[in-house]
């Protein structure tokens, strides 16, 4: 089920009424209703893969208890390895099996050996990368003695399958989300209004910004072989807005929906395109995944505590695996490598933590230097998005070769000038609102909160009119569903 679908428009109020109306006095029943709602939400897409979520949940629930019960570190480790291998094994099979087979065959072909292999028709279960990482954080944290295992299986099933963030995050840590299932929740009007506001902003980002820009980006990437460098780069810029609107829009809708049930999910995006360097970008983009890799991969590898070479190695490993997490394609690995190359100079010069605050935090407008820094960062990120969006590595190379040629300075050959005008208009409105709200959790959180009611209502109604007038009417799935 998509957040931007008619089905969800009916589903959400029903769950809301059952949760607060029928079970408001018993949080255990509320947890049960969340599990049921989450399984319906997920099963709407494909009921067969519910078994995977249940299996993964029950396995990690049991392993969590086993790790806690034993004092023997070796046995604890064995249980952890079982959790890691089972979860990553399932993920590997569904997501990477065909990729490894193909790469293996291509590798042998390169040396003149031809191999006969059979492909399997494997459907990638939606959200598998997200809930796998979420359950892994549970067993790892118990192993590290950072978390006590839960003995309440319903709460644990609800934690793993919590429908607002099940299919595309934010990837919640058990330490943060699981305790929320163990306490009584009471209806909070202002929290719910806040949730609706965040949902509304997320919906705007998805159906207006992302879906409009998708038209331009898709058009450019579909004509990679004939278009000039300038058109292709413009297409990449539109893709940058598309993926931001799409993914951060989903996150806002997820966080907003969770607030309706009085749950707090972690912030997943913090205005990444206002970053002044790549390190800041990675502190602001897909925060739940970046911090997951930081805590469960980068720091255990040694982080930046070792010598220069071990730091380079660790950064490269994290970015390559992060790229590979996104999809079984060399383009994602290339995207990770490119970001590692952008990031390394900063970490080697110890400038990766230079910008921890918000840009222009004490002023309305950024300084000239900040504008230049943001533009450079945005262009580096956009340059890398080409690898992310390209269908394969050959297309990415073709696009890069055109962008790095004199055709970059030719007039772009877009046919749909109407779409171009509309996208630019919407991006300007979007950019202004995001800039004004850049210090908050999401752009419209407090943008009009100090004003009288009629101004606040007019502003929210204005966003709804924009959605009504500019939303693409064809339901389109979220990009990150494929990961």
């Amino acid at each position, binding site marked *: 089920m998509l957040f931007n679908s*008619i089905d969800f428009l009916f589903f959400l109020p029903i769950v809301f009424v059952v949760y607060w109306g029928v079970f408001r006095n018993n949080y255990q029943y509320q947890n049960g209703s969340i599990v049921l709602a989450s399984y319906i939400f997920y099963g709407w897409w494909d009921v067969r893969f519910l078994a995977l979520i249940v299996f993964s949940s029950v396995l990690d629930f049991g392993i969590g208890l086993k790790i806690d019960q034993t004092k023997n570190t070796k046995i604890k480790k064995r249980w952890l390895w079982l959790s890691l291998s089972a979860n990553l094994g399932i993920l590997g099979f569904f997501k990477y099996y065909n990729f490894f087979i193909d790469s293996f065959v291509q590798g042998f072909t390169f040396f003149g050996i031809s191999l006969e292999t059979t492909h399997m028709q494997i459907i990638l279960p939606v959200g598998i990368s997200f809930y796998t990482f979420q359950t892994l954080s549970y067993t790892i944290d118990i192993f590290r003695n950072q978390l006590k295992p839960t003995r309440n299986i319903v709460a644990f099933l609800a934690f793993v399958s919590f429908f607002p963030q099940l299919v595309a995050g934010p990837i919640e840590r058990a330490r943060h989300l699981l305790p929320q299932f163990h306490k009584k929740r009471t209806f909070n009007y202002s929290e719910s209004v806040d949730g609706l506001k965040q949902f509304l902003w997320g919906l705007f980002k998805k159906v207006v910004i992302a879906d409009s820009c998708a038209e331009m980006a898709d058009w450019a990437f579909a004509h990679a072989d004939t278009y000039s460098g300038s058109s292709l780069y413009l297409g990449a810029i539109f893709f940058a807005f598309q993926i931001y609107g799409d993914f951060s829009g989903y996150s806002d809708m997820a966080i907003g929906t969770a607030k309706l049930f009085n749950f707090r999910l972690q912030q997943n995006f913090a205005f990444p395109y206002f970053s002044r360097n790549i390190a800041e970008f990675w502190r602001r983009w897909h925060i739940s995944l970046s911090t997951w890799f930081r805590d469960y991969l980068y720091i255990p590898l040694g982080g930046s505590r070792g010598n220069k070479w071990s730091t380079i190695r660790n950064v490269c490993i994290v970015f390559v695996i992060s790229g590979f997490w996104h999809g079984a394609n060399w383009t994602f690995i290339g995207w990770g490598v490119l970001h590692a190359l952008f990031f390394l100079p900063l970490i080697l010069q110890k400038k990766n933590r230079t910008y921890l605050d918000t840009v222009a935090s004490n002023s309305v407008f950024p300084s000239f230097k900040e504008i230049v820094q943001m533009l450079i960062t945005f262009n580096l990120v956009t340059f890398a998005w080409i690898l992310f969006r390209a269908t394969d590595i050959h297309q990415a190379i073709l696009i890069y070769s055109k962008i790095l040629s004199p055709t970059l300075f030719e007039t772009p050959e877009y046919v749909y*000038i*109407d*779409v171009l*005008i*509309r996208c630019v*208009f919407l991006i300007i409105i979007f950019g202004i609102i995001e800039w004004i709200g850049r210090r908050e959790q999401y752009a419209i959180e407090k943008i009009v909160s100090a004003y009288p009611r*009629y101004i606040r*209502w*007019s502003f*929210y*109604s*204005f966003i*709804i*009119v924009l959605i*009504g*007038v*500019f*939303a*693409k*009417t064809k339901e389109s799935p979220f990009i990150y569903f494929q990961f």
Partner: protein
Amino acid sequence: MLFMLFLLVFYIIGTVSVGLFFPKPLQLNINYALGKHGHLNSKIKEIPLHQNTDILFLGSSHCYRGFDVRIFEKAGFCSFNLGSSSQSHLQTNVLLKRYLNQIQPNTIIYEVYPNIFEIDGVESTLDLIANDNNYDYLWKLIVEHQHLKVFNSFIYGAFRKIVGLDKDYVEPTVRGKDKYISGGFVERKTSEFNAYFKPSSKPIEYKQNQLKAFEENIKLILSKKIELILIQAPVTRAYYSSIVQPQKHDALMENYSPYYNFNDRVELVDSLHFYDYHHLNQTGVEIFNQAVLDQLLLQQKEIR
């Protein structure tokens, strides 16, 4: 609750403002198509002049571009063509309920292009919103579609009608290569031929709501004791041969009424008798209409 009321008022004002003051590229979901392709605006204004007609034609562009009222008049049949742009069975239903009692035809020729059973019908509803002056029957379509374009265009259209912005509108008779002929036909005299089309790889997928509306239309027509003939107008050979299992559609249509598929009944040459893969040019229309007339006369003889 109060916010919902506020939102409703704000939304109406916002939508109308966008419709009135924003340039076309910024009116994505407001598609107020006053006086477009099928000349529905002109047709509806002409309806009072065509009461008690012999033949009423219904259908999409295959209808308003396919049945030339002048040819039928020459043969002694007084006729009116109520075909409109992408008119699906949902809109035919609205038009029949609105105008059938006024026109009171003896015979209805209903064009049943298979593709029309597969579409959502939004384009045609937008046509009705802009070009029909009565909104009484449109509510059903608005609920049926649940489509932002339909909803917004309806709000904007209602405002224009209430304020009277379209009251003096006169649709041009000639638009591009098309010429409107009184009686509802749209003529295109051209020797140009655009052969491009995207072949379909799937059999016809009937939308349940279209099929239901189609059956309702048949019932309504037959309940008025009007003679009904279902016709499939010809398309290019190249396109017709790409349709998967066209005989299934023939078999389905034969269940409802006398049905003639003119793809099998007239000899046409793609490049000579069509201007694109599924629309006849004037030369093609003349051959096709003569074949329809022959069939009509034959049928009348058989009845006698």
